[in-house]
């Protein structure tokens, strides 16, 4: 075996090890990517669940029932309502 053959052998061996290493790295990163994607799906699900919760908690009928039964409020009758019409401010007035 000449010296040149020895160098080529070493080069081939190091490239082979490099391929193995990069393949391993690719797979490791791919697993990380999959985990991040799973996490994204989980967050999406959580977001949807929160939207449902928000929609349920903010439902007008629920708020109204809470105001009526727990806070002792009442809906005003038409006679109890007073409409205030705010006239536009004249030129010199400021708020």
């Amino acid at each position, binding site marked *: 075996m000449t010296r040149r053959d020895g160098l080529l052998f070493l080069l081939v061996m190091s490239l082979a090890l490099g391929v193995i290493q990069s393949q391993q790295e690719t797979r490791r990163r791919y697993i990380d990517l999959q985990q991040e994607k799973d996490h994204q799906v989980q967050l999406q*699900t959580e977001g949807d669940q929160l939207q449902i919760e928000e929609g349920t908690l903010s439902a007008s*009928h629920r708020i*109204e029932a809470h105001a009526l039964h727990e806070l002792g409020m009442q809906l005003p009758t*038409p006679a109890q309502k007073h409409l205030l*019409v705010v006239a536009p401010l004249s030129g010199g007035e400021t708020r």
Partner: protein
Amino acid sequence: MKVRKGIPKVGKLEIRLERWRSFLIQGLLLSGFLVLGMRAFWLQGIHAGFLQQKGEERYSRVLSIPASRGIIRDRNGQALAISIPAVSVWANREDLEIDEAQRRALAHCLNENPAEIARRLKGEDGVVYLKRQLPLDEAKRVMDLKIPGIYLQHGFHRAYPKSSEMAHLVGFTDADDKGQEGVELTYQAQLEGLAGARRVIRDRAGHVIEDVENIRSPRQGQDVSLSVDARIQHLAARELQRAVESSHAKAGAIVVLDSRTGEVLALVNSPDYDPNQRGGLSGAELRNRAITDTYEPGSTIKPFTIAAALEAGKVRPDTVISTHGGVLAIANHLIHDDHVAESYTVSEVIEHSSNVGAARIALDLPPVTLWDLFTDVGFGQKPRLGFPGEAGGRLRPYQNWKPIEQATMAFGNGMTVSLVQMARAYTVFPNEGILRPLSLIKVSAIPSGRSVLSVRTAREVTAMLETVVSAEGTAPEARVAGYRVAGKTGTAHKVARGHYVNKYVASFIGFAPVSAPRIVVAVMIDEPSGNRYYGGQVAAPVFSALTGEIMQLLDIPPDAPEPPIMASSPGSVGGRT
């Protein structure tokens, strides 16, 4: 082995082997290597694909890529229907190995009766679903029991945060996430998500380490933004519920339209149901009466009779019509008015809802003139909302009309309509004669419509409809503090087995504010019982309460000549703002 005979030489033992023996061994070894080499060449060179495929089969898997159904939102972005991942638990009874303790634990995890679970698991073969649409965390507890033969199937659960208030409009999906009713069914193609699939390679730990191929790309369901405003829907549902309860009615419905765009802002029915809990529902609860049910409109049709006569130039608003003391005989039939009068102007025919006056005006018109306008405003045709089971109502061909039929149709007998049809037809008055298509979807620009009435006629009829809510009209209870409103009452006998019976449909259809109309509100109360059954008594107060609240909700400035209180700036009236 041969040894030379004689005395052996000392120190050297000469052994001589036959050459063919070493050649044989070498040949055998070489042949062995050659066979191995050829086999290796065969396996790794020529037949490599087969082995690779076998190898991949050990580690490759086809994974489903889930695609969720689109979200249904109201016009302000409020979620009305959302899908979240859920799983179904099923058992393959052929593989099932379960003892009593596990069965109890399983029933506990599924929140089911152990006896019921035991009943379902009985039998020797076949697949049985134990629970559908289970939340993921609960499903995990089931799998932690590690019972052979119990499996999970991943899917989605559809949730309806606004529960019963939106039920008839939004509808619901089945266990396979397919639309069954309402918008869920109408927009199934748009909402539906199509799952994808990909082939991957997994390592021994179960991690996906490589994508082999994309078998099918997923298609996420598209969101749908409805024209409905959840706040107005709530107000309508609340007022309808009150009216149905207080009048001990069988049912009711309300439709609120944006008069400028034709968008449906609210559509409610009573009785209703909770789409999140659909066990034991009856047809009465499921029916979307405002769209699928028809009724005789009664006096709410009169503005169209008058409009046809005005358009034909037969009458003017102040033309006096003889009402014969409130009774008109045609053939063997008598038409009555509730109020006795010898004559009314055309405007007063609307204000007092005179059947005789409307009938006389209609009889002066060729049948085709009346039929043309009724058809132009959409009676006898489906409103084309795209909703399942839309009713078109009944409007018979004018060629077959007898005089009595033409006369009774003038006040809404002998024809049928749905509430949503009536609401749409009324948009021609605030829109100065233009009829626009209805839309359940939020629109970005005002859709083009077609002119079915002249501007003058629309304005004249609007002025007449405004008198209906005056103190002398049939619906003073429809008035709204601070706002000018216009509308018409209707009280129609119901038909049972071909005859009119003493059951009524009370209705009121109107719009507001008259000076710059924004909404049309149609209220229908089915079979109010007790002494109060007129549209002006039962439906008009609902219109008043609901319209007043919508005006405030939409920040529409009052247009009545004398609003209750005027303030020049915040804080100037008794310190209140």
